[in-house]
């Protein structure tokens, strides 16, 4: 007490080092805290930027859909869809021809010429079937032209409006007044299109008659298997014919003034099954093919990487000798040092080729999807992505296994368990959530990977054909990351396409965020349960 009173300053911090009035401790705190703040700010900026660029998309997409309706494209598409379905049927016929040809040349050995000759009757049938659509085709091409013209007028008007606004922004009111804007009178423009309804009815009826007539002349095929296919074809055609009245009703009920709900701008993106850009007709921004592509590729990658990564982790952590550990660990971790573009290049130059060659080996033809001809596909990309995911999964799973207290292992051994029993019954279950989160983080790594999928996934923007069963993995796809990388460089800044790519980016961002969040939750729960 006495001392305190005698020297009232004894509590004052006496440290000498001061920087901008901050003590040394403060400096250290500011330095580390500052780094944390910077990363948070950067994350915030990225999110903000993504949102700002992407948010305009939905408005533009709605406008896009409104024009689609008002310019009559939607109307024409009803008839086009009918025509497209017919095309699908003719494709079925060509496939059937190929099968017959193969049968003729292989099972009932004939020369190519003889085989072709034997198919003359079938070819005749197929040709007639193809021609039945003719009345519809003429109508569609007329309508397409008309609807396109309306759309063009509308686009020109929009361009002019934009031009005027820019001039006004620049303060050139005089020039702005000179820009001529011709408003589009949709009601008047659509009259000729709607006027073709009687013509459509006639064409459709003629088409239906033609189909009925041709169907009656369908040839019988040589084997039960081929005949079954022919029967299925007939069934499909009957179903197709039964759908005609529905198309007519659709056309009759169609009304260009029907409003496009705001939600459709969103749903047509999230649930849209078509991603079609720079089209002469109508652009579609449906993300499903890309999401499905990304997921399929990731799924294949995980199916390969999980056993490899987790297996290697179990081996290294539980079974390997120290010397083996010293060798294997750096090797696997080294994989992550390979630039992904190199992997992609390797995929194109070697792996794709090798896998295709493998698929064509005759005694492997029982594998679903083998043989296939597309060198770049889900499988090729998945294999390479697996390589990218393995180090992540391995390292994190090994960590999780390492965190299993040694005491569990000893207790298990002391009860007379073998090494294998201990691993399977104690070690892996105890670290299971850690392993699951390792797999999830591997998934996050794979979904975000761009270069490999861009180079090796085949880049066909279509939902793969799942009716092919497991063979679906030999089809090419496009991915969310791939499409951004491919198209971002070409699009006009601020255009709907540009914004659509940003929204895809947002989707990807949230997907990765979600995966990471779930993984971390699992890890936390796991830490608690192990204690």
């Amino acid at each position, binding site marked *: 007490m006495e001392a305190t009173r005698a020297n009232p300053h004894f509590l004052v911090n006496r440290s000498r080092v001061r920087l901008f009035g901050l003590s040394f401790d403060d400096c250290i705190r500011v330095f580390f805290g500052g780094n944390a703040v910077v990363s948070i700010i950067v994350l915030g900026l990225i999110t903000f930027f993504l949102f700002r660029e992407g948010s305009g998309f939905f408005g533009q997409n709605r406008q896009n859909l409104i024009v689609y309706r008002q310019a009559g494209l939607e109307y024409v598409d009803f008839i086009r869809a009918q025509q497209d379905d017919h095309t699908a049927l003719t494709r079925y016929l060509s496939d059937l021809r190929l099968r017959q040809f193969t049968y003729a040349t292989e099972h009932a050995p004939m020369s190519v010429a003889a085989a072709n000759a034997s198919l003359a009757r079938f070819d005749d049938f197929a040709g007639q079937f193809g021609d039945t659509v003719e009345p519809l085709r003429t109508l569609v091409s007329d309508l397409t032209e008309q609807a396109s013209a309306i759309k063009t007028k509308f686009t020109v008007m929009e361009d002019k409006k934009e031009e005027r606004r820019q001039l006004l922004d620049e303060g050139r009111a005089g020039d702005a007044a000179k820009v001529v804007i011709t408003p589009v009178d949709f009601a008047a423009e659509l009259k000729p299109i709607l006027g073709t309804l009687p013509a459509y009815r006639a064409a459709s009826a003629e088409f239906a008659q033609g189909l009925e007539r041709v169907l009656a002349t369908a040839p019988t095929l040589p084997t039960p298997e081929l005949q079954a296919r022919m029967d299925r074809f007939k069934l499909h055609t009957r179903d197709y014919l039964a759908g005609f009245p529905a198309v007519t009703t659709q056309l009759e009920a169609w009304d260009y003034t029907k409003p496009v709900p705001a939600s459709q701008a969103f749903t047509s993106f999230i649930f849209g099954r078509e991603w079609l850009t720079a089209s002469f007709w109508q652009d579609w921004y449906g993300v499903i093919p890309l999401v499905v592509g990304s997921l399929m590729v990731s799924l294949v990658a995980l199916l390969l990487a999980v056993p490899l990564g987790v297996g290697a982790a179990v081996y290294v952590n539980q079974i390997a000798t120290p010397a083996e550990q010293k060798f294997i660990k750096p090797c696997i971790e080294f994989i992550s040092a390979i630039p992904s573009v190199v992997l992609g290049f390797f995929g194109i130059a070697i792996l794709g080729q090798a896998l295709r060659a493998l698929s064509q080996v005759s005694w492997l033809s029982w594998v679903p999807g083998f043989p296939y001809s597309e060198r770049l596909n889900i499988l090729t990309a998945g294999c390479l992505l697996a390589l990218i995911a393995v180090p992540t999964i391995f390292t994190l799973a090994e960590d999780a296994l390492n965190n299993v207290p040694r005491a569990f292992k000893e*207790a298990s051994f*002391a009860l*007379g368990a073998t090494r294998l029993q201990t691993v399977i019954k104690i070690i892996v279950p105890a670290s299971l959530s850690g392993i699951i989160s390792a797999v999830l983080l591997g998934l996050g790594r794979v979904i975000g990977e761009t270069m490999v999928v861009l180079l090796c996934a085949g880049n066909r923007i279509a939902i793969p054909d799942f009716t092919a069963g497991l063979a679906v993995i030999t089809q090419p796809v496009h991915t969310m990351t791939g499409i951004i990388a491919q198209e971002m460089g070409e699009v006009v800044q601020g255009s709907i396409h540009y914004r659509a790519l940003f929204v895809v980016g947002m989707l990807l961002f949230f997907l990765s965020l979600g995966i990471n969040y779930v993984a971390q939750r699992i890890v936390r729960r796991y830490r608690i349960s192990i204690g």
Partner: protein
Amino acid sequence: MVTTAPILMDTRPVAPASTFRPTTTTPAAAGPGAQAAPAETLIDIDHVDFFYGATQALHDVSLRIENRKVTAFIGPSGCGKSTLLRCLNRMNDLIDGTRIAKGSIRIRGVDIHQHDVDVIELRKQVGMVFQKSNPFPKSIYENITYGLRLQGVNNKARLDEVVEKSLRGAALWDEVKDRLDASGLGLSGGQQQRLCIARAIAVEPEVILMDEPCSALDPVATAKVEELIQELRTRFTIVIVTHNMQQAARCSDKTAFFYMGKLIEYADTRDIFTKPANAQTEAYVSGRFG
């Protein structure tokens, strides 16, 4: 000589010195006491030298552990008690570079370090309870049945029976019978340790090794485990490592004192604590060093 070690002044009812079964230094001279059967050697440790890599942890240790008796290993930290204990079920095999350079350990005449000995079978016969309780992160039920399931027992009725019997044997049944499906990690420290004992006795081993089983427990939990040891002594041969002199005095029939990897003295517990033959032993048990 110290005639009354302070430890023996403890008058708790569990294990006063008077309840000790009359054992003598040599089996041949077994007296006409309550359980007068001549002490039968179960484990014969014969001139063992043990090495961790290049460091020698045991020097020429020889002792005979008797069947159905409690044998305590005492000695200062680092003297090799755990090492010797872990030799008895070959847990040291899990550590790289360990070896017995000289001597042998025989259980019922079988040298357990021979190559043709089935370690798995050995560990079924020689169970172990660790210093830190280590139930598996599984349910209580799964913890107890683990050893049996390893042996291929999957009959539900049989497993149920063993679970109850083992938990009763470990004096834990009444506390957990309503939550057999709860995680073993959710029990208190003392309960966890008794669960580990139950897990060890579930496979009906012949020997149970306990490495400082009470060192992490409070006095009440310790007393329970000690009571348990008293009950188990009739069915199992128990080897217990302890730093607690009172515990050794209360629970064990025979005590071995180790110092710096050497066996200094091995005799009846009562003799070790009342009239130790060796000055170092005396100094240690009377608390003057260690």
